[in-house]
C-alpha cells in the first residue's frame, strides 16, 4: 500500500478583488478578509493529480490518500470535501493560515509526516497569497528526502518508485524518483479539483476533520524569519483615462506615439 499525503493551503480568492481596488493600494494593504476562501491553485492541482494518480495506479498497488492543512476552522469545509472525494483522512493543524513563515509551516507539516509516514508528499510549489515557494523545499530538507519541483503529473510504479513529469529550464523532463519524496506541483494545466456530489458529501463528507495541535517545533537550524515587509513597488504603469476606447488610444498615441516610433 502506498500512502499519498497532500498538503494544501486555504487562501482568499484574490481574483475576486476588483481591478480598481488593486490600483488604489500599495504594498500588501489589500483587505482580503471578506473574500471567499479557495484552495491555493497549485495545491488544488496537487490534490487533483493525487486523485488521478490513484485512479490509474496499477491493480496490484493499493493507494490511500490523506490531506493536511494548517489553518483555522475556515479550512474544515475543504477537508470535508476531500473526504467526499475519497480521501481516507483529512487533517488540520490548528493555526493561522495567513501566517507567512515557511520554516514554521514546514516544521509543522514535517511533524505530521513523521507520524503518518507517507510514501509521497504532494503539494503546490507556492501559495497564491504568501508565495515564498519555500515550504516544499524546507519540508523535504527537514525530512531528509528528495524533492522535485514544478511537477506537472506523476504515476506510481509497481516497484515503489514514482515517475514524475516536471517542468525544467530546458523543457519537460521525466524522472523516476524513489519514495518517500516530496513532489511540488507547478502550473499544471487543467487540473482543477473535481467536485464531489451532494450524495457523497452527505455520506462521506460528514466525517469531522482531524484537528491536530501545533507542535511549535524548532525549525531548521539557521533559519528563522527576522522581519517581513511588503515590497516597495513603484510601478511605472499609467492608466489611460477616456470615455471610449478610441479616446484612450488617441491619448496613448499622443503621449507615447512619437517616443516609441508608433507614429
Amino acid at each position: 500500500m502506498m500512502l499519498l499525503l497532500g498538503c494544501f493551503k486555504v487562501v482568499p480568492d484574490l481574483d475576486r478583488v476588483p481591478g480598481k481596488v488593486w490600483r488604489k493600494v500599495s504594498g500588501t494593504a489589500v483587505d482580503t478578509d471578506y473574500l471567499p476562501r479557495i484552495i491555493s491553485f497549485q495545491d488544488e492541482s496537487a490534490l487533483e493529480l493525487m486523485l488521478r494518480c490513484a485512479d490509474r495506479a496499477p491493480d496490484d498497488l493499493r493507494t490511500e490518500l490523506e490531506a493536511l492543512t494548517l489553518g483555522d476552522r475556515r479550512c474544515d469545509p475543504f477537508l470535508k470535501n476531500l473526504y467526499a472525494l475519497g480521501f481516507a483522512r483529512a487533517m488540520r493543524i490548528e493555526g493561522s493560515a495567513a501566517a507567512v513563515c515557511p520554516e514554521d509551516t514546514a516544521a509543522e507539516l514535517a511533524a505530521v509526516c513523521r507520524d503518518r509516514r507517507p510514501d509521497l508528499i504532494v503539494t503546490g510549489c507556492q501559495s497564491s497569497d504568501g508565495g515564498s515557494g519555500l515550504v516544499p523545499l524546507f519540508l523535504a530538507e527537514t525530512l531528509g528526502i528528495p524533492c522535485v519541483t514544478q511537477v506537472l503529473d506523476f504515476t506510481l510504479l509497481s516497484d515503489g518508485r514514482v515517475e514524475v513529469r516536471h517542468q525544467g529550464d530546458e523543457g519537460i523532463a521525466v524522472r523516476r524518483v524513489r519514495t518517500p519524496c516530496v513532489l511540488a506541483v507547478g502550473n499544471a494545466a487543467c487540473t482543477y479539483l473535481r467536485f464531489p456530489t451532494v450524495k457523497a458529501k452527505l455520506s462521506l463528507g460528514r466525517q469531522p476533520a482531524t484537528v491536530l495541535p501545533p507542535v511549535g517545533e524548532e525549525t531548521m537550524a539557521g533559519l528563522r524569519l527576522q522581519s517581513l515587509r511588503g515590497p516597495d513597488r513603484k510601478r511605472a504603469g499609467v492608466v489611460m483615462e477616456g470615455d471610449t476606447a478610441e479616446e484612450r488610444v488617441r491619448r496613448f498615441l499622443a503621449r507615447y506615439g512619437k517616443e516609441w516610433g508608433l507614429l
Partner: protein
Amino acid sequence: MAVIARARIAEELSKLLGSDRVVTDEQVLRESSLDRYRKYEQCMGVFTQPIPAAVVYAESAEEVSRVLTFCHANEINVVPRTGHSAIEGGLETALEDSVVLDGSRMDQYTVDPVNMQVTCGCGVPLQALDDALRAQGLTTGHSPQSKPLAQMGGLVATRSIGQFSTLYGGIEDMIVGLEAVFPNGEICRIKNVPRRSVGPDIRHIICGNEGALCFITEVTVKLFPWMPENNRYISYQLPDEEMELGFSCLREVMTAGYRPSFARLYDGADAYSHFSGWLEEGKAMLIWMCEGPAGVSAATEAGIRELMARHPQLEEVDPDRIQQWYATLNWGPEQIAREREEIIATHNIGITTEISGSWSVIYQIYASVKERLLSEVPDITFVGGHSSHSYINGTNVYFTYYYNVVDCPPEEEINKYHNLINRIICQETLRFGGSISHHHGLGKARAHYVREEYGSSYYMLKTLKQAFDPDGIMNMGTLIPLRK
C-alpha cells in the same frame, strides 16, 4: 423555412447592407447558434442547433427594416441579438438557415438631464452607459449581474431586472418610450412622455417580447440621481434552518412600506459560496442596502433595524463586509473565460434558474424544488438558492445548481441534466401558483411550459404572435414552442 438557398441569403443581405455587415465565418456562425443555456455544448465545441446562414449587423432602424422585409419575403427565421448574454435559449437558432440580426453597433445615446431620461440605441452597453452617467451624478438604476455584458435592446427584450430593483423597479418600470421594427418592416415609435391614458400600454407588447414579435432598435429609460455616499448596508446571519423566517423578514420590510434598493436572502449553501472568508457553514444571510437622499436612506436603515431587532435568531454582520462583497458580484468576460476553462477541465457545470411567487407560497416553492433537485438529479454537486428581488406581495428565488456531467456525450447533457432540472423547477413553481420566470425570460428552454404559465391568458399571447408575426419569422421557438 427559407425559400431561397442558404448561400443566397448572405449574398442578398450583402447587397442590402454591404458585405462588411454580413458575417459567414463558420466559427462565428456556430457560436451564434446558441446562448449560455447550452454552455456545456459551447465549452465542448459541440453545436447541436441548426447553424445560421449569416450574422448581419444593422446600424439603424431603417436597416433593420430592410433586413426584416427581406427575411419576411423569403420566410427566413430571424433571431434578434445585442449583447449575446441570454441564458434561456432565446438566442438559439432553432430553424435551418436562420439569420442572426445583431444590433450591437447601434450604440449611441443621448442624455436628457432636464427630463431625467436617456435615449439609447439597442446596442448601448449598460456598463458603459451607467459608468458615464455616474460620472455626471446620474444612474439608470438598472444593475443586473450581466451588466458588463448586456446591452439595452436585450435588456428590454427579456424584461430584465437589476440588483437595486426593490427601489428602482424592473426595466419595465424604467422604460419611457421605445422604437421597434416589426417583421413586415414597419418601424414604430412610442413617444417619450411621463405617463398617458390613451388605451392599453403598448410598450408592453415590445418589452419582454424576446425577439418573437419585433426587433427593438431604441429605448428611452428614466434617470435617477446617483448618491452612493448615502448608501447604507445592513446584514444579518441566521441559521439555515430558519429560511422561512428569512422570507418572513423580507416580507416584513416590504409590507411595512420601506424601499431599500437591495433586499436579499441567501440560503446556507449559497451564502457560503459568497462569504466563506468569514461566514460559518450552515448560516443563511439577509442583506439590505438603502439608497437615496441622506434622510431617506438613514430612515430606511433605521426602520429595517427596528423591525429586525424583534428577531433574536438574527445576528448582525459588519456592513463593511457586505459593501466589499458587493463590488465583486457582477459577471464580466473574465469570469466567463474562467468558468469555461473550469467546465472543460472538470465537466462540472453551474447554472441558475429564477422564479417568483407570492409571500404565502415562496418558501414552499423553495423547499420543494431543493428537495426534488437533491433527490432526482443525478451527479448534482451543489444546490443553493437566494431571493434577490422583493415586492409588497412576494419575491423571487434564484436557484443555483452545479452538476458533474458523467458518462454522457456533450450533446446529451442538456436532456440528461439541464432540461430535467428546468422541468423540476417549473413543475414545482406552477404547482404552488408562482411564475416560472422572474427576469431571464422564457427563451426556448422554458417556452415548453408557457401554456401552464399563462393559463387562459395564453390566448392573448398567441394572438399577439399571430397578429405581429403571422408568417412566423421572428425567433421561432422562443415564447411559444415549435410544433414538432
